[in-house]
């Protein structure tokens, strides 16, 4: 795996190291500042530094402009709200709409907002009157029924009494109706009954009645009727269940009490007259007004919708303009004002390859803004660490994001993403290995890729968004899975002799010992992958476990060696020979003399078919290295070789630990001896020493800190050599889990259903098999293998060489995400 070139012989590889960045200083005259920032935003290749970081947001130059933009953004949000309530969709933004002036937009927004607010207020008022009138109508109807029914029963009773009277004079008059009583009572003592009508919410009606009763000491008469459909309450605008009530009272004090209680309960009162003729008249009047109001309200809503449509046409354009302007003013706030107050100074990071484009943009801005002076572009030298910038395309950006999720590369250190593009899907496939499942995932991801353009413009849910973003990674994963599936010879756990007949056969013609001692190898080894005879045998697991564990160790040692070799390339790039001699070489020697040797032993054992026990060999290499190996001997002079390797490993540990801190100390002293007379043979950064604005403190050198750091690094490497190698065994574990699950679903679901010879059970069996395969194997196992392959990269591969403490290049650009809301 160590075939990476780079450095002197060939051109530098794309994506391997960050683009060279430079700190640039732009001096722009005031009149072209706005246009300059706008053009630079279109370009998207400059990351501005905030030169006014000590100032609060209110002290900055353009705070007023930002407030203006904020106001406009608020109005735009209000419009968006109103439009979504009325279900009006904004028109899609065409590519090149003409540029509009911000002041025009502001005026227009103000006008439209005032109009819209007015229309809404009017609508609300009208709606409220409408609801009140509806309630009034109901009161008129129901209360009218009270009176008419009471009148009927009263006249009925009167007739009864009259007929009674004519029969029996002088009877007890206690049961006489109210009307009879009233006639015989002295007119001066006549009680004046008043009444109130109205509506009360149904859930409060019982309490209402009780409180009225208690407050007036029982001297009222109340009747309620239910209204069947819910009524829209005028004050809240929502439907509520209500009852119509009518209260008869006597006296002013009772009236005031009742009025207060009605108010407290939110019961609306409406006037009602006893006269039948007037009631009918009121009903017709109210109905007329109701229909008038309805037409008015409808007209109002129509007008509002037309207004919203006109807003919708221009909405996206205004929205984009306002956000652009806000971004420009934020950036302008970061520039510092020159002493003469005539120009702005900007400092920022930009890639070296973009210098020409930036200068172009500056010139265009100067010309377009009719300024007399052009802008100045100059490169500053600094000791600060630049941001890291990788130019990725849609294929490599997903992998780069995965690597960045762990840590952004330090400026110009080797990018693990280059190899991760291939090794990550490969390790995934080693754990996933089934070409049937691989084909399913391939189909799914081909769908995503073929519908790329359409899906990119839609708004997808969170999970779909992630799957869509990683579609090329998943494509690679599926292709490698098909390959490893062919090697493991598993198609939904069924093996096929695709390339040649199986290598094994019975010992004799009768096959009597096939189930006791087993078959023997009669033909050549199965040419591609695992022999199909193994599936379902009793010795399948011991064989496969041994194979997969050894494979995991071999793959793991290879990847770790690749990691250490990457650290060599880093050391060579940063010209740090101490790292080469006292870090790379001892690390290589330590890892390979132990685990490289183990890998070689595995291969020799396989090639010779020896029965040596490798556990025994490795463990006793440490415990009693001078012992005779006996039957564990795999090659001649093995004992001597083991002693030499053990010695090398032991020597390499202090080599990793001790020399580097002392050498660094000597270099530091040499550098600071006379001011500039010592030759610099180590620089940790590739940028020069001078300074303008950056702070350059005196470089401190704490020997104890460096020593402890090196000690930790050494211990981590030595212990990590064992633990990381063992960690690669997860390749075996997950691959075993996958094949066992797949085999269980096949045998215990599909074959079982097939065995019943019943179509119904077969269909159910197939459905269960499909759901189990998709849910458990295609989704859960994919995520699981993805996660473990990721961990192997992030920890076992990257801790051999990756520092990952840089920061990402975040240029000023107008490409907004859909959710950005400032």
């Amino acid at each position, binding site marked *: *795996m160590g*075939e*990476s*070139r*780079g450095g002197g012989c*060939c*051109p*530098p*590889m*794309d*994506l*391997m190291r960050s683009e060279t960045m430079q700190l640039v200083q732009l001096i722009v005259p005031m009149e072209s500042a706005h246009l300059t920032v706008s053009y630079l935003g279109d370009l998207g290749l400059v990351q501005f530094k905030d030169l006014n970081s000590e100032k609060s947001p209110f002290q900055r130059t353009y705070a007023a402009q930002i407030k203006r933009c904020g106001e406009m953004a608020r109005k735009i949000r209000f419009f968006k709200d109103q439009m979504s309530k009325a279900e009006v969709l904004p028109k899609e933004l065409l590519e090149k709409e003409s540029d509009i002036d911000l002041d025009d937009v502001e005026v227009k927004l103000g006008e439209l907002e005032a109009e819209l607010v007015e229309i809404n207020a009017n609508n609300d008022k009208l709606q409220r009157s409408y609801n009140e009138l509806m309630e009034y109508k109901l009161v008129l109807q129901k209360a009218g029924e009270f009176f008419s029914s009471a009148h009927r029963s009263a006249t009925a009773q009167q007739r009864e009494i009259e007929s009674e009277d004519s029969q029996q004079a002088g009877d007890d008059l206690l049961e006489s109706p109210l009307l009879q009583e009233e006639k015989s009572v002295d007119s001066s003592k006549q009680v004046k009954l008043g009444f109130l009508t109205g509506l009360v919410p149904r859930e409060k009606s019982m309490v209402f009645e009780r409180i009225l009763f208690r407050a007036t000491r029982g001297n009222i008469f109340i009747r309620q009727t239910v209204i069947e459909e819910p009524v829209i309450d005028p004050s809240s605008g929502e439907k509520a269940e209500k009852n119509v009530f009518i209260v008869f009272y006597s006296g002013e004090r009772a009236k005031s009490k009742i009025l207060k209680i009605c108010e407290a309960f939110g019961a609306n009162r409406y006037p009602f007259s006893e006269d039948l003729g007037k009631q009918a008249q009121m009903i017709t009047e109210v109905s007329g007004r109701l229909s008038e109001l309805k037409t008015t309200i409808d007209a109002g809503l129509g007008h509002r919708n037309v207004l919203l449509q006109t807003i919708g046409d221009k909405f996206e354009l205004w929205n984009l303009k306002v956000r652009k302007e806000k971004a420009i003013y934020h950036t302008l706030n970061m520039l510092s004002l020159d002493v003469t107050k005539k120009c702005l100074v900007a400092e920022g990071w930009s890639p070296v390859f973009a210098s020409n484009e930036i200068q172009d943009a500056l010139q265009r801005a100067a010309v377009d803004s009719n300024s007399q002076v052009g802008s100045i572009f100059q490169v500053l030298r600094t000791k600060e660490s630049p941001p890291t910038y990788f130019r990725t395309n849609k294929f490599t950006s997903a992998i780069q994001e995965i690597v960045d999720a762990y840590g952004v590369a330090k400026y110009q250190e080797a990018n693990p993403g*280059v*190899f991760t*593009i*291939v*090794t990550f899907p*490969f390790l995934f496939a*080693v754990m996933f290995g089934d070409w049937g499942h691989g084909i399913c995932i391939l189909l799914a991801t081909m769908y995503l890729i073929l519908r790329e353009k359409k899906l990119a413009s839609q708004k997808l849910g969170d999970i779909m968004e992630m799957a869509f973003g990683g579609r090329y990674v998943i494509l690679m994963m599926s292709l490698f899975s098909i*390959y490893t599936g062919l*090697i493991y010879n598993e198609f939904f756990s069924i093996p096929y002799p695709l390339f040649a007949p199986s*290598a*094994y056969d019975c010992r004799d013609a009768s096959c009597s010992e*096939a*189930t006791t*001692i*087993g*078959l*023997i*190898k009669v033909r*050549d*080894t*199965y*040419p*591609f*992958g*695992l*022999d199909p*005879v*193994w599936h*379902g*045998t*009793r*010795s*399948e697991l*011991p*064989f496969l476990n*041994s*194979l997969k564990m*050894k*494979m995991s160790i*071999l*793959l793991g040692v*290879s990847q770790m060696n690749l990691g250490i070799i990457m650290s060599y390339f880093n050391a060579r790039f940063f010209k740090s020979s101490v790292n080469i001699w006292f870090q790379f070489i001892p690390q290589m020697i330590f890892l390979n003399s132990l685990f490289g040797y183990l890998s070689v032993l595995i*291969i020799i054992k*396989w*090639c*010779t*078919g020896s*029965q040596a026990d490798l556990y025994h060999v490795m463990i006793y290499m440490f415990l009693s290295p001078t012992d005779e190996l006996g039957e564990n001997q795999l090659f001649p002079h093995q004992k001597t070789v083991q002693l030499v390797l053990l010695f090398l490993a032991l020597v390499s540990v202090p080599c990793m630990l001790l020399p580097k801190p002392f050498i660094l100390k000597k270099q530091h002293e040499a550098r600071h001896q006379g001011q500039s007379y010592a030759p610099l043979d180590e620089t940790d950064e590739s940028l020069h020493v001078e300074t303008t604005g950056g702070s350059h403190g005196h470089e401190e050198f704490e020997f104890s800190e460096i020593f402890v750091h090196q000690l930790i690094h050494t211990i981590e490497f030595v212990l990590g050599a064992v633990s990381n190698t063992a960690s690669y065994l997860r390749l075996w574990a997950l691959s075993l889990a996958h094949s066992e699950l797949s085999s269980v679903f096949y045998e215990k679901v599909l074959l079982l259903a097939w065995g019943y010879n019943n179509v119904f059970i077969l269909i159910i069996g197939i459905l269960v098999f499909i759901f189990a395969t998709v849910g458990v194997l295609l989704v859960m196992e994919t995520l699981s293998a993805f996660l473990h392959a990721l961990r192997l990269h992030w920890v076992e591969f990257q801790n051999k060489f990756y520092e990952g403490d840089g920061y990402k290049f975040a240029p000023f650009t107008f490409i907004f995400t859909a959710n950005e809301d400032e």
Partner: protein
Amino acid sequence: MGFLITTLIFLVVGIIASLCVRICCNRGPSTNLLHLTLVITATICCWMMWAIVYIAQMNPLIVPILSETE
């Protein structure tokens, strides 16, 4: 014998793949180097996996013992 032949086949396939990639997406020396690295890495990974499985079966210590039902 079969091992060497198949290894040669892998080598040839790798070379053909790098040539194809160079022909169809020729985008400047540094990008070409990246593509070459990716193709070589993929070929080596695939070959390693095949070789490991092949060598493990060349001189087996365990033989298949069929289960009762078969």
